[in-house]
């Protein structure tokens, strides 16, 4: 069953800048991953949202798409979006290390 969920997404222009939350209405079902949701926002609602996308395995192997879903760190590609819990919050793993929006410096070279 498809239903519309409110996604509250952290937005920030860079490290040290004041962040804010932006809400998007996204259709989901019980099999929708967080990566699906972010792709949907990017392709249909707001192409300016930054999240790790350009070199992602989509299968839980590369480990690069880590974000916080309702406060808990997860891999966006394999994390399911809760359908019945009201608003879903998505944030970068660390606001201190944020590059833009959901993208963080993961400590790689």
């Amino acid at each position, binding site marked *: 069953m498809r239903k519309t969920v409110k996604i509250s997404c952290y937005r920030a222009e860079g490290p040290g800048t004041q962040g804010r939350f932006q809400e998007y209405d996204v259709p989901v079902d019980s099999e929708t991953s967080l990566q699906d949701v972010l792709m949907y926002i990017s392709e249909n609602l707001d*192409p300016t949202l930054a999240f790790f996308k350009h070199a992602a395995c989509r299968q839980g*192997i590369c480990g690069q798409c880590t974000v916080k879903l309702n406060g808990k760190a997860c891999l966006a590609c394999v994390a399911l979006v809760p359908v019945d819990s009201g608003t879903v919050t998505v944030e970068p793993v660390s606001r201190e290390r944020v590059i833009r929006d959901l993208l963080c410096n993961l400590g790689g070279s």
Partner: protein
Amino acid sequence: MDEKRVVDVLVIGSGGAGLRAAIEAAAAGCSTLVLSKGKVNRSGATLLAGANISADVECDGNSLYNMGFPEAGKDDSKDAWFEEIVHQGMFLNNQKLVEIYVDDAPDRVRELIDWGVKVSRLESERGISISSRELLDVLMRKVTESGVESESNVEAVDILVTDGRVSGVLGINVVTGDYVVYTAKTVILATGGWHSLYPFTSGSTDLTGDGQAMAYRAGAELINMEMVTFCPNTVLTPRRYQGSIVPYILHTTGYGHLLNKKGEEFLDRYFDREVMDLALHTEWNKLLVSFAESKEIEGEGTENGGLYFSMKHCPNEVFERIGQEIPGLKQSYQDMMDRLESGYSLEVAPGAEYFEGGIKVNEKYETTVPGLYAAGECTGGTFGSNRVSAATTEMLVQGFRAGKYAAEAAKQSDVVKVNEIEVDRLKELLEVPFESRGATTPASLRKEMGDMAAKYVSLLRTAEGLRVVGDRVREIRDVLRTDVALSSKTRVYNLEWLEYMTLRNLVDVLEMSAGSAAIRTESRGVHYRDDYPYTDNDNWLKCITVARDGDIIRFRFEPVVVTRTTHPSGRSLYQEYIKSLAAKYV
């Protein structure tokens, strides 16, 4: 001022081919730098090989036996393997490249073992099975020990050519949006395939034909670009597993049933039982099962355009045995296995998986542009019209050779100054979407190209569909030049701008691939023409090459490189021809 770096050998791509090339270039004493569009060692095609549980690395069984694997095929030989590769490639293989593949393979396997790779099982009489992350980690350790430097999140945008010779690469740091100008004596492309052109693929998002497109724009020749392998039994839904080849692995290991939307088995309607037996137990299934699945989906596919992969009615004992037979499966894919065990299916379809065509190379893995080398999946020719043997072996063998010869050439050359005028011209071009007031979004073009590729440059092709693609691609090229605009002017990880650079590459590979497919008016290997269902050995044992001539794309015919195996003659229906080839192995 742009950041600038100078090295002897520059490697583009950090999968197995790029890392193996870098190790060899450094061993020869060259300063070597690896650029990765994503995270070094955690991006590219290698990472997903065998779903990270069973990437098979092959060499002939006899060599493997002599390395201490008693279950390997003792009676196998390099010659026998060579013959199979050429038969299975349906004679379109460059036999010199096949000889190198077969001859070098044991050394590449042995050194992996010497470097401490953990072998999880014997995959076949010719192959050892390794997790792909383990394979990359072992190579990366060696890369670091060799003093090779690497940079993550740098996209190579174009090859810089000065007076007909490679002088370096223009890159963009995707995180900051800053340009970086690399000066290098030789450049090795190791960028994988163009999986991500297709909306449904088993590959990662960074595989967008960058190397093929950059080589094309630099003036290099490409070959066999019509040849695209689709992996059957790639997960379509549930969406969160989409792209996973776990059902493919289960099916080749001998498990599971494929059913159409009515719950009927269908495979043996397309091929005789003995051909299907071969399909079920060897990598021939990529070709055979994908063909049958594509045909079946047209008539009796599910609403999502797939088929059911089911393990219903398997007793629990079977699931227990699978866990032992395929180490890592249960740990990595417990919930997918639980789903199958509970009687629900996975919806599957053929997903874009491997690209036989690519950049044309000689025996030194040099392209037709002096100073430019290529290795791994981004090259074309070794596997002709159908790859059955391991792509991991291809990447190691070719990476080794490309690294060695690129280093040799670098040591004999002076640094060629990059052409600053050319750099400025390229940057101006890349800045266009920031200034444009056009009406086209990168996402809309990406979707349109993906849909076209899926519909017309998939497994089953027709002249009409390929013409639609050819015409539209030329229009898209114009749209890209002038009409694409970005919603945000930020340079920091601007996904729309990155998409714009990807579109530049995808438009080139799509034009080359669809154009070559339109010219080949026969069916051979993974290239099946609904309007020309014959394999025609009298007229079509030749390769199609493609290169840029100014702003015009030029296709040419080229004889197949033959060293040992002579070509057959005659013309027969595709399925009949496959049956006659398959008969040798049954």
